[in-house]
């Protein structure tokens, strides 16, 4: 009886160890958003993806517009997560909560940007896409606001602008022609239910090992 009891106990602890170690494995970088990754950002309140295209605002700054779209299959909704200007982040390194990043539009190479102009539909702060080949100016920098240590892929986070302190938001106003149905994306000063975003589709880069020493080959 005693022997059976101890064996049971052993098996239980073994299983626990196994589960714990595999849990550790699951909790690895696979679930984090990392530097260099290409992501689609989904607003959880209005179910639209952050989007940009070669269409300029007709008012405000006249820069390239940033909107929210319902489609899940448009490559113009991909954004690359990069470090601050002159401070590149290591490829594959998980982004920390509170870290300053740039969010660069894949197709046009312009950075998510905001400034003191009014948005066309709601009179909040205009959010545009600015720069060339990934280089713009200091108003391209945002911090990721989340709980915990790293930005997790399935976590809802907020993006706070460094410089004007607004939060990236959508409140539902829709554009007409030529971008009918797309929602206005703007900056709002207070954190609320409209500024939660999470990653959806994308290409998430895992951290690499150091390259092999040539002598070993």
């Amino acid at each position, binding site marked *: 009886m005693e022997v059976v009891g101890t064996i049971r106990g052993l098996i239980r602890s073994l299983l626990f160890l196994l589960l714990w170690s595999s849990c550790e494995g699951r909790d690895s970088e*696979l679930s984090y958003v990392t530097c*260099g990754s*290409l992501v689609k950002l989904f607003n959880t309140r209005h179910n639209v993806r952050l989007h940009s295209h070669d269409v300029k605002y007709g008012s405000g700054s006249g820069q390239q517009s940033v909107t929210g779209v319902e489609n*899940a*299959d*448009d*490559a*113009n909704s*991909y954004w*690359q997560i990069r470090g601050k200007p002159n401070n*590149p982040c290591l*490829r*594959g390194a998980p982004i920390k909560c509170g870290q300053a990043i740039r969010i660069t539009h*894949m197709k046009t190479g312009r950075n998510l940007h905001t400034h003191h102009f009014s948005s066309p539909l709601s009179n909040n702060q205009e959010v545009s896409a600015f720069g060339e080949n*990934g280089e713009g100016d200091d108003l391209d920098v945002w911090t990721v606001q989340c709980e915990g240590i790293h930005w997790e892929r399935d976590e809802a986070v907020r993006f706070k602008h460094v410089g004007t302190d607004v939060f990236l938001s959508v409140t539902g106003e829709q554009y007409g022609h030529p971008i009918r149905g797309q929602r206005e994306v703007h900056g709002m000063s207070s954190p609320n239910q409209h500024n939660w975003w999470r990653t*959806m*589709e*994308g*290409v*998430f*880069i*895992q951290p*690499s*090992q*150091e*390259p*092999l*020493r*040539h*002598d070993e*080959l």
Partner: protein
Amino acid sequence: MAAKGMNLCNVCCLLLYATTAVLAGRDFYKILGVSKSASIRDIKKAYRKLALQLHPDRNQDDPQAQDKFADLGAAYEVLSDEEKRKQYDMYGEDGLKEGHHSSHTQLDFIPSSQQDRNIPRGNDIILDLEVTLEEVYSGNFVEVVRNKPVAKEAPGKRKCNCRQEMRTTQLGPGRFQMTQEMVCDECPNVKLVNEERTLEVEIEQGVRDEMEYPFIGEGEPHIDGEPGDLRFRIKVLKHPVFERRGDDLYTNVTISLVEALVGFEMDIVHLDGHKVHIVRDKITKPGARMWKKGEGLPNFDNVNIRGSLIITFDVDFPQTQLDDQQKEGIRNLLKQGSVQKVYNGLQGY
């Protein structure tokens, strides 16, 4: 008896030859110019090189260019896939029963004549992949997780292939009206479901800036057609020690005035940690260059060939001023007369 045996043997041989000739189809290994035991990496390299050479745009006056290029694409498609290669090795080309759709793996850094297919295609995704010079030297692998929408069957029907068409309606005898109408077909309904898979990109040794690694079909889906591609575009980062020019590496070393005059010995730590030993016992002038063959980057097409490491020396003069005694000492030591030559250095005089 023997003669009969011989005949039977001959017939067998002939039959075998005939069947293999029939079964053989194309010799993919020969088309790529690789041995049967070539690694995937060798096959990729061979394909890249030949694709550049055999592309129809570059061989406009060769009537067989399209065929040769198609053969090359087919060879690569089979030999770069483990399963297909196994089947091909056993049963030949005809043994590959599946009708894989004719996706010619087009290289993206050739200004290619876009294949005019009527099948609509989803968007391509281009990811700028930053690589360090260390990775260019030794190679590396990057794992990525691709989460993408995939079209799945759903109940019901949907409208597809919508287009504008002109319709003529008769208003009366001899009077017609042309109107534009939206006409759609009916297709099985699809919905987009997100799926995830892990992909691996190899950073090959010697890879150059702007080179692309395509993953066919991993781009954005198209409901009425094929998915686009995912392409990784290499961006080589600047390095604090080495500068790349082609396969050569350039670096600068500052030595003291004493070392410049009397000689020195030092090690330069290379990109993979090995040391390059430098010995100098003569006078080293500022701007002097030393060539170290074989210490550059591996060549992308043949990693056994390496470029050179070119070291340019500059001299650090002493910071503190010399007193009269030291000045006298130096005059006596060096015994170099006054030169004071005045000339136009900017025009080569």
